[in-house]
């Protein structure tokens, strides 16, 4: 199992294409090899079996033929004995009748016979066909066939091949024959005498049967007698000459059936079949190489084909898997680009439907992200801008100059208390303005800021107005957006009280109404018409103010709404020549709560 885990692990690390390729290839190679091996095996088995069977059959056939041939010869000998000799008295009937009968017999079998003859016990010729004159130095009684016939009189004797040397032959033809001899009893003038009947079989008869045998490419058959002497061999002449060697002495001792022998470095399959009656053995030789070469060649061929198939499969696999995996790879590359925060990477839309879908989705996702991020950037930009504006406005140069001027004038006029008051108020003003960057401060702090502002303005405006700041206790610690009240007060001063001559009144009140925090800024200035109110609320007027702190009505409303939602904001009530009330409505929450709320929105 561990190996499997290892394999799985290593595979996991590899690319899709590699895994695909490898798997396809491994499977197809395995299949091809299994098929090739299986087929090859079967082929080898069946080829071997067929070869062995073939050899057996061929040898059986040959044996059959040889048996028939030999039996034929034996029956000729029998006929000579039983039909011819036994019915003749050599003396009384004379030899002519026997000779004529022998001629018939010979003529009928001329193609397989060289000669047939009857000899007396002392080797004298009695009758013979076709030629009857013995050669001068022929001595039948000392010939082997003669001697052996008389050794065992009940049997027929087959000799080894030799050249027939008995009869005068003026055609100068010398035949190789196998002599079949037997001892016979003849009647001469009533008495029984012994003799030998000789049938000389034409060796080519045996040769015909044994040659041209299909025992594989270089297989052959040969014939030996009981003592291992060669009777027939395809290379007989060369074996006699000592040029070629054969294992016949040893093979003749094998039992009937199949054997394997190794001779002169060559392994061969030997099949032995005994020929009846004679004790001869038919030996079939089939070099194992013949059998193996057939199936070796075919095996080679098979393996060639297998390799070819494997190569093709590898190529095809590689091709197919690359076509499948490439789009995925491309996709993966695009994702990597995206990872590197390159949102502008293009995602090629290739491959199968699924891949294309993925690509499309990825593309739109990237586009979305880009859009969102652009939005964020824009938002952040505007926030920065607002803050910058706020910051800027907090450091309105004009206000500063004027205030500083006033302070300088006071100092010049030795109104040091007044100067100290103004400087202190200014400092406090700026402190809360900046207020450590916080946007949400307590009502108390904002009102203080307003007071500082008013202190300064009062001096500057030479006590043109009076002011009053009231707050309920419960709301002092509530949250309010920084610099939301002061701009309203500023508006009152600039729009309201500037045009008045000393009776100006600004009232600032902070109180709780229902669940909201209300902070009012009331002045008794000239007020606004309904249209002016309308214009102010809708923001049709200028946002940028050169005078005052410059934040303005809208800025405050925007910031309140941004932070706390649209249900809060500013209200304006105004009557011309009566005055104006600007009311800021905020939720009644603590600073921490407001900060939490605001986080999400800012």
């Amino acid at each position: 199992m561990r190996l499997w885990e290892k394999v799985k692990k290593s595979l996991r690390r590899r690319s899709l294409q590699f895994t695909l390729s490898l798997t396809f290839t491994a499977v197809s190679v395995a299949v091809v090899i299994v098929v090739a091996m299986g087929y090859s095996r079967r082929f080898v088995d069946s080829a071997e079996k067929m070869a062995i069977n073939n050899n057996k059959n061929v040898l059986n056939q040959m044996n059959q033929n040889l048996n028939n041939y030999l039996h034929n010869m034996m029956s000729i000998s029998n006929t000579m004995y039983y039909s011819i000799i036994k019915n003749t008295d050599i003396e009384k009937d004379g030899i002519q009748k026997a000779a004529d009968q022998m001629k018939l017999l010979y003529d009928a079998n001329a193609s397989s016979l060289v000669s047939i003859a009857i000899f007396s016990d002392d080797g004298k010729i009695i009758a013979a066909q076709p030629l009857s004159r013995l050669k001068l130095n022929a001595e039948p009684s000392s010939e082997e066939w003669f001697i052996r016939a008389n050794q065992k009189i009940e049997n027929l004797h087959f000799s080894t091949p030799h050249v027939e040397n008995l009869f005068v032959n003026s055609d100068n033809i010398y035949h190789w024959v196998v002599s079949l001899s037997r001892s016979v009893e003849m009647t001469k003038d009533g008495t029984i005498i012994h003799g030998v009947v000789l049938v000389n079989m034409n060796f080519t008869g045996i040769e015909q049967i044994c040659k041209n045998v299909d025992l594989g490419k270089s297989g052959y058959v040969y014939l030996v007698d009981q003592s291992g002497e060669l009777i027939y061999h395809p290379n007989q002449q060369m074996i006699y000459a000592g040029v070629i060697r054969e294992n016949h002495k040893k093979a003749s001792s094998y039992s009937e059936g199949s054997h394997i022998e190794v001779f002169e470095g060559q392994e061969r399959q030997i099949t032995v079949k005994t020929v009846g009656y004679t004790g001869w053995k038919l030996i079939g030789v089939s070099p194992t190489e013949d059998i193996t070469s057939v199936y070796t060649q075919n095996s080679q061929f098979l393996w060639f084909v297998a390799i070819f198939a494997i190569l093709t499969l590898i190529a095809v696999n590689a091709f197919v898997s690359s076509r499948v995996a490439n789009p995925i790879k491309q996709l993966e590359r695009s994702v990597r680009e995206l990872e590197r925060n390159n949102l502008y990477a293009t995602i090629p839309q290739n491959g199968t439907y699924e891949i294309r879908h993925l690509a499309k989705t990825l593309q739109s996702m990237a586009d979305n992200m880009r859009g969102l991020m652009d939005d964020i950037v824009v938002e952040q930009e505007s926030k920065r801008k607002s803050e910058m504006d706020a910051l800027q406005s907090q450091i309105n140069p004009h206000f500063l100059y004027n205030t500083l001027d006033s302070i300088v004038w006071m100092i010049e006029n030795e109104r040091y208390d007044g100067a100290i008051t103004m400087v202190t108020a200014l400092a406090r003003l700026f402190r809360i303005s900046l207020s450590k960057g916080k946007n949400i401060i307590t009502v108390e702090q904002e009102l203080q800021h307003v007071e500082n502002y008013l202190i300064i303005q009062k001096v500057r405006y030479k006590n043109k107005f009076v002011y009053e700041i009231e707050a309920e206790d419960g709301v002092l610690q509530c949250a309010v957006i920084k610099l939301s009240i002061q701009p309203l007060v500023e508006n009152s001063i600039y729009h309201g009280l500037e045009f008045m001559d000393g009776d100006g009144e600004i009232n600032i009140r902070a109180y709780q109404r229902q669940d909201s925090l209300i902070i009012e800024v009331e002045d008794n200035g000239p007020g606004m018409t309904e249209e002016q109110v309308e214009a102010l609320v809708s923001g049709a007027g200028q946002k940028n103010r050169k005078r005052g702190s410059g934040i303005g009505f809208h800025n405050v409303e925007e910031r309140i709404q941004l932070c706390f939602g649209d249900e809060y904001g500013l209200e304006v009530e105004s009557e011309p020549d009566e005055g104006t009330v600007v009311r800021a409505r905020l939720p009644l929450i603590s600073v921490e709560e407001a900060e939490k709320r605001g986080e999400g929105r800012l």
Partner: protein
Amino acid sequence: MHKALKTLWKRAGLIILIIGIMLCWGCSGKNMPEQENSPIKIGVAIYRGDDAFISSLSGHLTSEAKALEAKLGRKVIVNLADAKNNQGSQNDQVDNFINKGYDIICVNMVDRTAAAVIADKTKEAGIPIIFFNREPVEEDMQIWDKEYYVGTDAEEAGILQGELLVSAYERNPRSIDKNGDGKLQYVMLEGEQVHQDALIRTEFSVKAVLQAGIEMDKLGSEMCNWMRSPSYEAMLKWLEEYGDAIEAVVANNDEMALGAVQALREKNMLKDGPIVLGIDGTKDCLEAISKGDIYGTVKNDAKRQAEVILTIGGACIEGKSPSDIVPELEGHYVRVPHYKVTLVNANVVLKQE
């Protein structure tokens, strides 16, 4: 780098392609031998090599092949196969010729009744076949159109032989008809059981004599297989039985006549013995004629037959029709004519051998 690799692959691919094509060409190329300069192979299958006439004919085939070589401008190889009187062997030998792609096959059938097998095989292989000396039956000669037979007219031979006897008799009747009974006592040495020449020669030589008004008395006849020894034996037998009553020995061929002569010589009966006649005109016989042992023979022109066989073969190879070139060709048969040979012209004929 990429471009260099590209060209490298291109070249490699081209090389592999070329090798592949060359391999294929090589493999198939082996199967296409060059037509123009390859030698002409002629296979000759004879029925047995120890037949004197046949071996003389084969010898002429080999020597006449040179003339064919000169004529065709290509090397001519003549290969002989001896069937040793076994039709099975001969069939194998013809198969061998066919398998080795011989251009012409000449067959001297062991068993003239078994020609169909061989004719069929050569038809299938498209190799022209010329039978000679041992004639297949007519049906077997009609199996396809490139079958030819070159031989002689056995009837003519028989008649000429008979005429020899007639003229010898008419010149000096007493020397032939020793017992003066007006009949010719003769023995007949016959060739082979089924051979067409044997049957016809036997019949027509006797007929020719009878037609000349001379009566004939057959003492004995024997099938001696064209060979000397059996004839010798047979003659001995007859001499023992009939002695000098035999007035004529008529043999279907020279070898058998020579066998009879051998027997006569042994019994010292050559000098005033029977008149001996043969057919073929072999060297030994011609010498015997010069010595007077044999009276006469009928020349079986082996040389001319060999020439004709090769001419027909050459014509077939060149794609011409043999009948345009060989005057003796009648249909598919050529019968080379015989002529008589006696003491008068024996020496001349001998020189031609």
